[in-house]
């Protein structure tokens, strides 16, 4: 049973169907792996041992009785701790929500449970999603499974590390500016940020509502496609979900890339991108060419504004969204206060971490009288230009290929004291959030130090099936080569 934790979601589904092992044995195997790896990885904030085993036994009974909830019934999944799970803590890795147990499930959780998935635990993250390294968690720093002195990335670092360390076969993350893709690149996993409106955000604790989407982290492209297909679709509880039809990302996945037009944006291969990363992604571009795709350089000049625009817009939205944490209806309340204003101020000051306070300050500043036009209005203008650039470029090509991150996983503490240095690591990932388009990160090589390198595929809105097809073709190539 030892190595079953290294199998993917679809492999588990097939093994469960043929009775190779039971859901209970599967969950026990992952719980044992978590027990073994957590001391060095610190991916989880909460592990739901007893209930996961109860649910696994119920799943086995359903399967025996012929009333299974589908092919994934009984498979465990890890969930980022900013996605609400009924009767299970949801802290957003913040002291502000320490001990908070939501009275409802997020829509994605409802859909996972309806398909028989078992939530095995909640994963670590940067507080409220604000960070790129998990160093901003109020509780622990997740370590990169490939090198425990390095970060796992963020903000969904716990989810990516859990999958990379085989503590879970799949995980949910959320991506506001790269928070699914960047940790996936650092940990060698496959991470998808879907089109804005593809997946319901109901039950995702809001950070920057116009930018974020819940995404999937897995060890293979096919697993990722299967999970997203199950979660996607309109939801009456989230008016920004789109009324596109049922999402099938699997049936065309092996269609290949022949005659596909793949552009690589000049702006995402230049200054700040390490030589090793650039060379690995350009080598991948060549492989796409060998497989019959047409690969050429494109330009999106407005991307030079993407980072400042992202940080102004996301912080502005955060300053508004996080005003709900006032110590009154839920979350942390300061022990001492004389009046209601002190209650708000002390609860927020004691409950929120440094990076969250910095972003609230920046957002409040950017929206305040006298500065709104100078910062917020200009950031929205930049966002409009970026969207226009993507629209133009997607008339010339089907997909864009770039690095996911400028460099491989950095050392813990290396960028912690310089917010702007940390922000700069998001250069390749934030444009997709600003434009609302889907983007996927998948491994494309290993650095001299043995660290994973990730490449990013971006497509036009609602082109996830095409992204999966292109990613699958590349992944297969690696398998063929290694095998």
């Amino acid at each position, binding site marked *: 049973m030892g190595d079953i934790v290294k199998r993917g979601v679809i492999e588990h589904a097939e093994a469960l169907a043929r009775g190779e092992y039971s859901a209970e044995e599967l969950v026990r195997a992952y719980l044992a792996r978590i027990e073994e790896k957590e001391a060095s990885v610190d991916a989880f904030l909460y592990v739901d041992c007893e209930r996961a085993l109860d649910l696994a036994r119920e799943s086995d009974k359903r399967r025996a009785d012929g009333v299974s909830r589908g092919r994934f019934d009984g498979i465990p999944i890890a969930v980022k701790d900013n996605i609400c799970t009924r009767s299970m803590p949801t802290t957003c890795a913040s002291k502000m929500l320490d001990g*908070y*147990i939501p*009275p*409802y499930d997020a829509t994605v959780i409802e859909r996972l449970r309806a398909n028989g998935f078992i939530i095995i635990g909640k994963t670590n993250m940067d507080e409220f999603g604000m960070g790129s390294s998990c160093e901003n968690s109020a509780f622990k720093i997740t370590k990169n499974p490939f090198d425990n002195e390095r970060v796992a990335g963020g903000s969904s670092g716990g989810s990516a590390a859990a999958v990379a360390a085989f503590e879970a076969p799949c995980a949910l993350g959320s991506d506001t500016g790269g928070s699914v893709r960047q940790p996936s690149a650092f940990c060698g996993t496959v991470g998808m940020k879907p089109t*804005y409106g593809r997946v319901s955000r109901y039950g995702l604790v809001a950070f920057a509502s*116009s930018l974020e989407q819940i995404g999937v982290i897995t060890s293979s492209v096919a697993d990722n496609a299967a999970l997203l297909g199950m979660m996607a679709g309109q939801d*009456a509880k989230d*008016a*920004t979900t789109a*009324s596109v039809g049922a999402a099938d990302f699997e049936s065309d996945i092996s269609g290949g890339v022949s005659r596909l037009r793949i552009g690589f944006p000049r702006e995402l291969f230049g200054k700040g991108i390490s030589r090793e990363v650039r060379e690995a992604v350009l080598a991948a571009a060549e492989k796409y060419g060998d497989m019959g795709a047409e690969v050429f350089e494109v330009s999106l000049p407005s991307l030079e*504004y993407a*980072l*400042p625009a992202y*940080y*102004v817009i996301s912080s502005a939205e955060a*300053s508004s969204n996080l*005003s709900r944490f*006032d110590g*009154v*209806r*839920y979350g*942390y*309340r300061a022990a001492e*206060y*004389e*009046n*209601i*204003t002190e*209650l*708000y*101020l*002390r609860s*927020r*000051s004691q409950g*929120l971490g440094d990076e969250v*306070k*910095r972003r*609230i*300050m*920046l957002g*409040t*500043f*950017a929206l*305040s009288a006298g500065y709104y*036009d*100078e*910062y917020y*209005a*200009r950031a*929205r*203008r*930049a*966002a*409009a*230009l970026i*969207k226009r650039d993507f629209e133009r470029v997607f008339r010339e090509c089907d997909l864009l290929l770039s690095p996911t991150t400028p460099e491989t996983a950095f050392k813990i503490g290396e960028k912690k004291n*310089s*917010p*702007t240095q940390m*922000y700069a690591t998001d250069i390749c990932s934030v444009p997709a959030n600003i434009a609302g388009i889907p983007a996927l990160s998948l491994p494309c090589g290993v650095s001299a130090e043995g660290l994973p390198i990730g490449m990013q595929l971006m497509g036009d809105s609602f082109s996830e099936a095409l992204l999966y097809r292109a990613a699958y073709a590349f992944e297969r190539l690696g398998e063929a080569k290694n095998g």
Partner: protein
Amino acid sequence: MTDKSREKRIFSPEEAEHIAELAKLGFSESELKKICADMSDIIAFASKLSELCTEGDSVETDSLSVDSLREDISSGGIPKDELISAAATSCDGFITVPRVIGEGES
């Protein structure tokens, strides 16, 4: 870009205190010093946006296209007692907070 716009804007403690008050955050003296330094750096980082002209050509807004709104019909929600139980203090089904009306009066 003018020379003036290239100068680093220093975020003063007075400004920080004003913004903190709006944001309902409090900082100690040493925290305030740090937040001023960080904010000055972040604003310098965002100053690239000053190259973008927002005049003349009306600022494009990329507002979200809300696909559809559901009918405004209430359906089974979360039981009130479950919601109230998340609050730090409550009494008889109400969340309790310090007195608001008449605050400051003896």
